[in-house]
């Protein structure tokens, strides 16, 4: 039965109190460990279709007469359009319509970053549209660009009021500490670079707007587009069948959707608006750079008594002020914490959420700081973390489930390898081992719904308007339904990604798809299973054993229909994911080359539904983390603010040759308080500790403190030179 509750809702660290309609979840959790289907490795249900090119992505959507749009963007980081003339573009053969500032949402004559959308043209071919854009006459007024985040904070150019945490008495605790370590850490701007660029195809079918879009949230797009265009939500249909990745950058509609919708309205045709890879590198979002000035105070036995920091998020022209202080306020049992977080507003492209936003950056600073503390205390870094383990959430709540100590226990053998790894060092190549812990959300929550139908062939179709952003959630849903129904996994088809043809499901962000939707799928399957049991009782008598296939064969065209919904999260409890990673590196001290040789990843994400899918998420997170740590950086011309890295030769993501050996170990204990599955999300946790684990391994190998990402050769050589200087000074004393 549905009921109305007042509860806290969290998405990637943003918590708000909301009214929620929830359905009770009467199902008992399954026992821990592998079952018939759940907990057993299953290949992607859609793997072959993807590999064969049969899976239809938004990029594959084509309609008869479809037009192609191209967007005119500001070439300056801060400018105003004084005058714009679209007429020359409209005269180009093949061009069907052109729109300028104010003609569609997000097309604006005030440009606060390079790449800000100003105008758009659609034509029979993309090439015609691009060529027509060149002819649009624009008179620009260039304005002063603000590019430096500290400068923005000093001038009060902020996105919102600074966010603060104040727990206990930080100043006093720091003054009383036996040991204090202070340091400044910096992280760079990196780009999502999903395989599929941001794009949408819009067409009007009567009074209904159809939006085919590469998105992480079909329902969010439906609501946003309806609200922005003044349409009833039911008159917007949003479709995303297969999706080529988002990593947080595809949670909202974006100018490309509004441009396509408006041009479709004007031309009466379907219009496709797809960003090029170069646009993607400039104007499709990024993980913002940070400056983190942090301090820790501890007693000589390693008990942390004070943690504090000033965090500056270099957000860009708009976006949100991610929870970079989150790890510091959440990971350790520390009574005295003070943080302040600034969202610096700059004339740079807006940040968007990127796989554990804030926590990737904040964990780099916190977990490196902890190793610097361990070095000063001459304490084992793993021991230091165990000593400061939080039994209760530092915010005061109980944890719904926490297996971090078990993660530490399982990390110990990997950590123990450091003696043997270090011993393989020589004069040129130094080797070392480092570790870092991780805290993140990932519990998901209501609402999410699923329908299921079972036919006379004993095969089932699950319908839920969630989206599989490429993570394998489609397969996870099939596994859960198969388990509950007692049929093979490949007898379950999962239909997703269409707001017209399925019930609401959550957004695919915050590692929430599986923990939110899979319990609803199980509930729907249980509903169907209950009906099947009732039929069985009528046919075979109460309690008699029966064969599902044989029973259902009598259905003919009749179908069993089940519905299910995600129940509430436990009230007043802290639902989090935890983990620890141990990295092994080799550093060439003459050339600054850092090689990550091995990463062991031990994570607690509750019940594991598909170990194969989960380990591929871990591998993906670590590979993306290696890029973030060593080679990726969006570079900006310091005087003009222009983006310099717009192609894959300049913006360096890791290649397969950069991938270390990855050992995945998931604790796989269901969270007893959370849902009928006890499963949490695995999308984001694996990227969180990567940078700190690698940087700590570099310190272990070389004695050099790397406090700035990426650890390029120049950063590594700089840190080595500084370490030599410090050691020289120490030796001189």
């Amino acid at each position, binding site marked *: 039965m549905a009921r109305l509750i007042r509860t806290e809702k969290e998405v990637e660290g943003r918590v708000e109190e909301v009214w929620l309609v929830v359905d009770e979840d009467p199902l008992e959790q399954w026992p821990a460990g592998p079952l018939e289907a759940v907990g057993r490795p299953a290949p992607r249900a859609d793997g072959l279709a993807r590999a064969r090119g049969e899976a239809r992505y938004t990029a594959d959507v084509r309609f008869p007469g479809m037009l192609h749009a191209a967007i005119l963007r500001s070439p300056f980081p801060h400018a105003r359009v004084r005058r714009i003339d679209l007429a020359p573009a409209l005269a180009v053969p093949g061009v069907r319509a052109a729109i300028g500032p104010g003609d569609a949402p997000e097309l604006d004559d005030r440009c606060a970053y390079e790449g800000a959308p100003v105008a758009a043209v659609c034509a029979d071919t993309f090439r015609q549209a691009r060529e027509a854009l060149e002819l649009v006459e624009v008179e620009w007024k260039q304005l002063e660009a603000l590019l430096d985040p500290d400068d923005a904070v000093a001038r009060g150019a902020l996105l919102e009021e600074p966010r603060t945490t104040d727990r206990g008495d930080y100043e006093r605790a720091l003054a009383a500490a036996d040991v204090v370590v202070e340091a400044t850490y910096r992280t760079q701007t990196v780009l999502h670079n999903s395989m599929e660029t941001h794009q949408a195809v819009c067409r009007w079918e009567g009074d209904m707007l159809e939006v085919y879009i590469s998105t992480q949230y079909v329902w969010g797009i439906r609501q946003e587009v309806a609200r922005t265009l003044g349409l009833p939500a039911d008159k917007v249909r949003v479709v995303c069948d297969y999706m080529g990745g988002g990593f947080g950058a595809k949670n909202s509609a974006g100018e490309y959707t509004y441009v396509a919708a408006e041009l479709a309205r004007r031309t009466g045709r379907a219009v496709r608006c797809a960003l090029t890879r170069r646009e993607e590198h400039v104007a499709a979002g990024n993980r913002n750079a940070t400056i983190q000035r942090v301090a820790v105070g501890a007693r000589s036995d390693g008990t942390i008594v004070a943690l504090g920091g000033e965090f500056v998020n270099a957000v860009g022209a708009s976006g949100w002020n991610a929870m970079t202080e989150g790890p510091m306020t959440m990971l350790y049992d520390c009574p005295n914490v003070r943080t302040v977080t600034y969202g610096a507003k700059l004339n740079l492209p807006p940040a968007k959420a990127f796989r554990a936003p804030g926590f990737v950056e904040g964990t780099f600073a916190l977990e490196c700081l902890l190793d610097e503390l361990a070095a000063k205390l001459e304490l084992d870094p793993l021991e230091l973390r165990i000593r400061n383990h939080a039994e209760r959430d530092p915010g005061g709540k109980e944890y719904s489930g926490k297996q971090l100590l078990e993660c530490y226990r399982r990390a110990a053998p990997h950590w123990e390898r450091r003696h043997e790894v270090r011993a393989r060092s020589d004069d040129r190549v130094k080797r070392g081992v480092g570790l870092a812990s991780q805290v993140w959300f990932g519990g998901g929550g209501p609402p999410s719904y699923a329908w299921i139908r079972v036919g006379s062939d004993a095969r089932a179709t699950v319908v839920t308007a969630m989206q599989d952003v490429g993570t394998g959630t489609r397969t996870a849903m099939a596994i859960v339904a198969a388990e509950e129904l007692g049929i093979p996994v490949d007898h379950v088809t999962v239909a997703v990604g269409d707001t017209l043809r399925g019930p609401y499901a959550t957004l695919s962000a915050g590692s929430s798809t599986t923990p939110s939707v899979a319990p609803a799928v199980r509930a729907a399957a249980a509903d169907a299973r209950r009906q099947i049991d009732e039929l069985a009782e009528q046919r075979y008598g109460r309690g008699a054993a029966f064969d599902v296939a044989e029973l259902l064969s009598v259905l003919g065209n009749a179908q069993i229909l089940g519905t299910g919904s995600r129940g509430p999260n436990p009230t007043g409890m802290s639902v989090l994911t935890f983990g620890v990673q141990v990295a092994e590196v080799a550093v060439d001290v003459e050339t600054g080359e850092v090689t990550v040789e091995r990463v062991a990843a031990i994570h607690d994400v509750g019940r594991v539904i598909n170990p194969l899918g989960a380990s591929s998420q871990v591998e993906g997170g670590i590979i993306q983390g290696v890029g973030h740590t060593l080679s990726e950086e969006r570079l900006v011309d310091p005087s003009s603010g222009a983006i310099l890295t717009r192609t894959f030769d300049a913006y*360096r993501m890791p*290649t397969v040759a950069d991938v270390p050996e990855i050992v995945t170990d998931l604790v796989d204990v269901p969270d007893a308080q959370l849902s009928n599955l006890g499963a949490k999300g695995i999308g984001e946790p694996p990227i969180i500790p990567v940078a700190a684990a690698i940087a700590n391994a570099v310190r272990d190998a070389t004695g050099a403190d790397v406090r700035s990402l990426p650890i390029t050769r120049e950063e590594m050589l700089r840190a080595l030179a500084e370490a030599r200087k410090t050691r020289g000074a120490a030796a001189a004393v």
Partner: protein
Amino acid sequence: MELLRPSSLEALDGATPIVGGTEVVPLLREGLLATDALADIRALVPRGIDGARVGAGTTLAELEADAQVPEALREACRLAASPQLRAMGSIGGNLLQATRCWYWRLDYPCRLHDGDRCHAREGEHREHAIFANDFCASAHPSDVAAALLALGATVRTNRRELAVRELYRLPSRDDRRTTTLERGEVMLELDVPPADASSYLKAMDRKRWSFPIVGVAAARRGSVTTIALAGVAPVPWLLDGSLDDATPLPGTAYKLQIARALVERARSSVA
């Protein structure tokens, strides 16, 4: 745009010649090169390896796998680009690569584009030059050219024979070009004389598929070792003096440090 298959190099008629197209096509797409016609000259340029003679149309993939090829050249090919690009790209085209300087690639009015300032010198230049960087700080990206310089290779074109060294010129106020090839001149064959020992070492931002931060080629004949570098000057750089003569920019000082280490390693590997 037309794609021509001329019957002789004399019939090029202003068309831009391509073999693999891995250099020219991206430049066309970026709008950095404009042409009305491309000429596919694969049938007109020798391809293959015969002792010291290497056809200019030979792919990097063929060179990296052939035991007749001196080690330095083989390694330079193996460490260049990606397998896909090496399967298409020819050694001749590789020598004529344009710089990866982002200002040049983004069409800033820099000195290589006939403008009046080097944006990299005052701007973001971590990938730029440590030698001959006063007029233009761009870095030449060819690994292969450094190997050929160290090996003392020569080139035969449809018009003349010249040392690989003479293929390049530093850009100047009067002439912004970085090669000496004339219009209509096409490389046909290289002569790569054997060495007693040779090697190529490369520092990159990732393990594969990156242009060199610093590439170092060494070739020894008897007691004489020749060193050449990639990624350190607007043209491939024959080290006839000392690394102490380098003039690094604030953001490229680290390159000199890497060059010192790699030159020493390359020297000892051919000793």
